[in-house]
């Protein structure tokens, strides 16, 4: 028992001596480490401020080039800028760059913005009665909305716009095709002609 106590006392004395020896150098190391940490967090802060400035400029409609390695929020602002102007191919390249990020919500928003641009283009074609040209844009938009929802299932704006797009061009799932939505009607009861059609020559 006493042996252990003396051992413990000796250990304690050695630890105290070691601490006294090392304290001076440890303080210097701590100080240097904190200086480095300060510098790094300061750089991070400055980066955040710069990114927010770029986002604000893009929102106000100023064309600012954004690198593909920029922060995801800056990329999103760039995508929104391009999508608003209908530059789909450039926006898509940015969405692919954004997909390297790990935040599902930001990635979902990127797909949503791209899909909105595609759907607006489709509406543009429809208003000019170019239905065949509108068709692929609607389908691409639906695919992008679906991507957005796969990443963020609670993205209500994407749900709503997917509904809008899906009503422009319906896709018919298997169960709908074989399902009995059609009314089985006796052929004799069907109108073979539109009633009220004026007869005779005008």
């Amino acid at each position, binding site marked *: 028992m006493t042996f252990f106590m003396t051992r413990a006392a000796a250990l304690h004395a050695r630890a105290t001596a070691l601490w006294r020896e090392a304290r001076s150098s440890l*303080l210097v190391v701590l*100080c240097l480490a*904190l200086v480095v940490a*300060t510098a790094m967090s300061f750089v991070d802060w400055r980066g955040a401020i710069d990114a927010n400035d770029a986002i604000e400029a893009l929102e106000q409609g100023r064309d600012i080039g954004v690198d593909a390695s920029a922060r995801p929020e800056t990329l999103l602002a760039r995508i929104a800028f391009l999508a608003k102007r209908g530059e789909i191919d450039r926006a898509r390249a940015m969405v692919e760059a954004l997909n390297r990020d790990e935040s599902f919500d930001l990635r979902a928003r990127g797909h949503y913005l791209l899909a909105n641009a595609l759907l607006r283009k489709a509406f543009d074609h429809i208003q000019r009665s170019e239905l065949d040209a509108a068709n692929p844009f609607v389908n691409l938009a639906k695919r992008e909305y679906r991507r957005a*929802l796969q990443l963020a*299932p609670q993205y209500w704006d994407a*749900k709503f716009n997917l509904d809008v797009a*899906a009503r422009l061009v319906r896709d*018919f*799932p298997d169960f709908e095709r074989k399902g009995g939505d059609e009314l089985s009607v006796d052929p004799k009861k069907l109108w073979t002609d539109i009633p009220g059609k004026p007869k005779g020559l005008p």
Partner: protein
Amino acid sequence: MRIACLVLALVATLSAAAQELTARIRSARPFGYFVGDLIHARVDVSAPQNAALSRASLPKPGPLIGSLDLRDVKLSESVENGARLWRLDLTYQNFYVALDARDIEIPSFDLAISTAAGAETVKVPAWRVGVSPLREVAPQKQEEATDYMRPDGSAPFVDEATPRRLAIGAGVAALLAFALVARDRAWPPFQRRRARVFSALANEFSTRRAGDDSELDAAIQSVHRALDTTNGATLLAADLPDFLRRRPEFGPLRMDFERFFSASKRRFFGGEQLGDDFHAEQLAQFVSALARRERSG
């Protein structure tokens, strides 16, 4: 998953061999799903204890039919009352855009189970969930076609507050640590610290290099004063063992102490003008060694 699981209890499939292989589907809510919603279902498969489920026959995550994805499959296995129970937690995602409230079909799948009687398949049957529309069939007329859509929304900003708080916190901590280092080494404004007489002396020596002999004399005297201050009374060579016992941190410097005292004695009382074994450099080294030992005290 959820305690109040509504039991759909769709099926109890009995295999041809009349084994008790049963599959039962439970769903928390079999109705009211919008497009994009997740549908959670739990399939309980029970089998005799010696049966084994082939993992390869589990359904694979991915698109099932055009408007339905299987996102996640989780399997857990347990033994209850001599029967083996497999619990499959399935997560589907609905992409069917409904125009009216209607049921869509979740497709069936087969599970391969090997029992003592041979390989069996359990069919987990198809079941139906109700999906609902998000909008009216005929929405109000809008001026622009794009007005039917939800807008792009505003851009999220980068969080500035957290890095700012971190930078300020780290800066304050670094200043504090620097103050601690300055105190430890008796840098200004801590040079008057009583306990750090040798550090102050070392600073003084490093700024003012002893050139000629008279300055060396003054330097040796100032070291004596510092030693006296540390001792609390005049420290002579004879007092050294006692002093070192009271201040053990200076113990490793015993040889240097003795050299210093003998050199000092010879210089001031022995009449030697050129102390050839004790120069200004050695004195400075002694003082900085004293300062180091003092900091560890």
